[in-house]
């Protein structure tokens, strides 16, 4: 288990995250509807998962030994679709079909439409339970795969989440890691105004989980934490990834308007300009 990661690898993952962000903007512009803030904020986590952490073979999405990634907050699926296309699950050109009639890229992920999605999601609160099922099967079948679940912070309003959190501890599922997109927004406003969640870390710990609280837009921190939680035994882990919703596009950052709206042509142009500036910055930093 590496306790550090090279600058070169970090740079590679940061570049992939930027490519994911560019693809998200293009997809949403094309679709004319969909969610912007969540996907952009989670691009660094998805880059880390798909290009570093997950043990997977994109050309063999049904490979028995693969790590499983469950997306519980299905509305941020553009970030997953972009990461999947970039890693070779399907052609990049297919991203243009998002939300269109006949597309495999449904507005919310549909398991049997697209190989590589482990579950169907959109209705919130249902992912951790399904991941527990997949993790229990892993233990029953003596498989080494690890199960990752990405969830929203607002999604933690759902009682179902806490039912599954109790059960994860009950069965000591150390092959399970929950990643929370802690971006502080949901539809009706800031999470702490709509329904206060803090302290999420204490809540999980008191439920018997190993908890980490990190900067979810810092690739080095994400990757090292993902490596670390795999070494925790006899309990499931949660990573509270503090992200900036809309990260990378200045006018979308921290503004809950962008939870459920796509950019128009003008806004997409501005967004791409922001992302190109960031690209140049990465180049010059390393």
């Amino acid at each position: 288990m590496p306790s550090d990661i090279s600058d070169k690898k970090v740079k590679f993952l940061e570049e992939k995250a930027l490519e994911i962000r560019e693809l998200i903007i293009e997809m949403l512009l094309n679709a004319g509807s969909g969610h912007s803030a969540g996907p952009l904020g989670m691009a660094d986590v998805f880059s880390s998962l798909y290009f570093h952490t997950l043990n997977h073979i994109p050309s063999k999405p049904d490979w028995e030994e693969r790590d499983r990634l469950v997306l519980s907050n299905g509305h941020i699926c553009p970030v997953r679709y972009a990461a999947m296309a970039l890693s070779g699950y399907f052609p990049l050109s297919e991203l243009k079909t998002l939300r269109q009639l006949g597309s495999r890229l449904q507005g919310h992920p549909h398991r049997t439409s697209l190989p590589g999605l482990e579950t169907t999601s959109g209705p919130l609160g249902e992912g951790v339970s399904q991941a527990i099922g997949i993790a229990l099967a892993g233990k029953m079948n003596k498989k080494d795969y690890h199960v990752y679940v990405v969830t929203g912070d607002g999604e933690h309003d759902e009682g179902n989440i806490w039912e599954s959190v109790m059960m994860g501890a009950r069965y000591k599922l150390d092959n399970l890691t929950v990643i929370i997109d802690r971006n502080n927004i949901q539809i009706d406003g800031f999470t702490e105004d709509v329904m206060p969640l803090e302290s999420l870390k204490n809540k999980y710990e008191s439920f018997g989980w190993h908890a980490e609280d990190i900067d979810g837009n810092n690739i080095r921190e994400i990757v090292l934490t993902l490596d670390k939680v795999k070494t925790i035994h006899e309990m499931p882990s949660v990573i509270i990834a503090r992200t900036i919703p809309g990260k990378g596009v200045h006018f979308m950052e921290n503004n809950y308007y962008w939870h459920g709206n796509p950019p128009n042509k003008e806004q997409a142009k501005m967004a791409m300009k922001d992302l190109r500036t960031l690209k140049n910055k990465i180049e010059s930093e390393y």
Partner: protein
Amino acid sequence: MINKDLQLNEFLFSSGVTNIATRDGYGEGLLSLAQENENIVVLTADLAESTRVDKFEEKYPDRFFECGISEQNMVAVAAGLGVTGKRVFTSSYATFSPGKNWETIRTTVCYNDSDVKIAGHHAGIMTAQDGATHQATEDIALVRCLPNMKVFVPADYFEAIRITEYVGKIYGPAYIRFSREKTPVITTEKTPFEPGENFSYWVSDKPECIIFATGYLLYFSLLAAKKLKEEGIEVEVVNVSSIKPINEENIVNKVKDVRKVVTVEDHQVAGGMGSMISEILSKECPSQISFMGLQDRFGESGKSFELVSKFGLDDVGIKNTVLNLLKK
């Protein structure tokens, strides 16, 4: 021809017909209810703006409660409020309420007979690009089978106002179904709504087929009726906005001399409005029925009117279904 007694929108068949979403009618209805009755309370589960209760929240912050994303919790809280003399509207998407929280509604609202109204928004394939997870196509079936529950599906914006105001004036559990998309305004402020009565919007002295339509698909049914008339075929079109209660005799009287029926709904054909019509007719007036709606499959992502055509629920699809039925 159009039923003149109902004072429908005179621009109904013009290409520039006004489109307004039924959820906007819900928001309007709530505001007028709140003004008259201070016991009206509104709850939402992180969907204030899209279920159009944001204005109510602004105007009556003391009677508005944000439950966060917790549909099960929301209806049970509503049930608690509803047994204390409050009249509570819960606002979420139909897939989650009455979908996700169905048993809680069954016990705490219906069996408990609490004064709770369930507003099920974004119903049907009209929820469009979000895809099947967000397109409630089973909600009518879910609520129709619950004792004590009243069930209404407004066909347009004005009817949505009237139905919201009606359920806000009576005690007890009720469900109202709304769509996200802007749809044609069919009625006017003068058009009657009476619970249990379902009026014929297109009438004829000698119809060959009776079309029962619910929700915005009434519009496409009326368009189909007009096209059929141009081809010399007379039909009658009934707006089934009142699913429960329902005047069964009224339904039988419309059909008994015709015995050919088409039902049209943005819902699974199993358990929906069409099922209800066939339950009524099979008792005293067995008829040939073509059921239009989703035929035991989920919806999918796409543009809203594109999906209506794909599932054959537009005027062309309805007209062809009538023609096929008449050949049988």
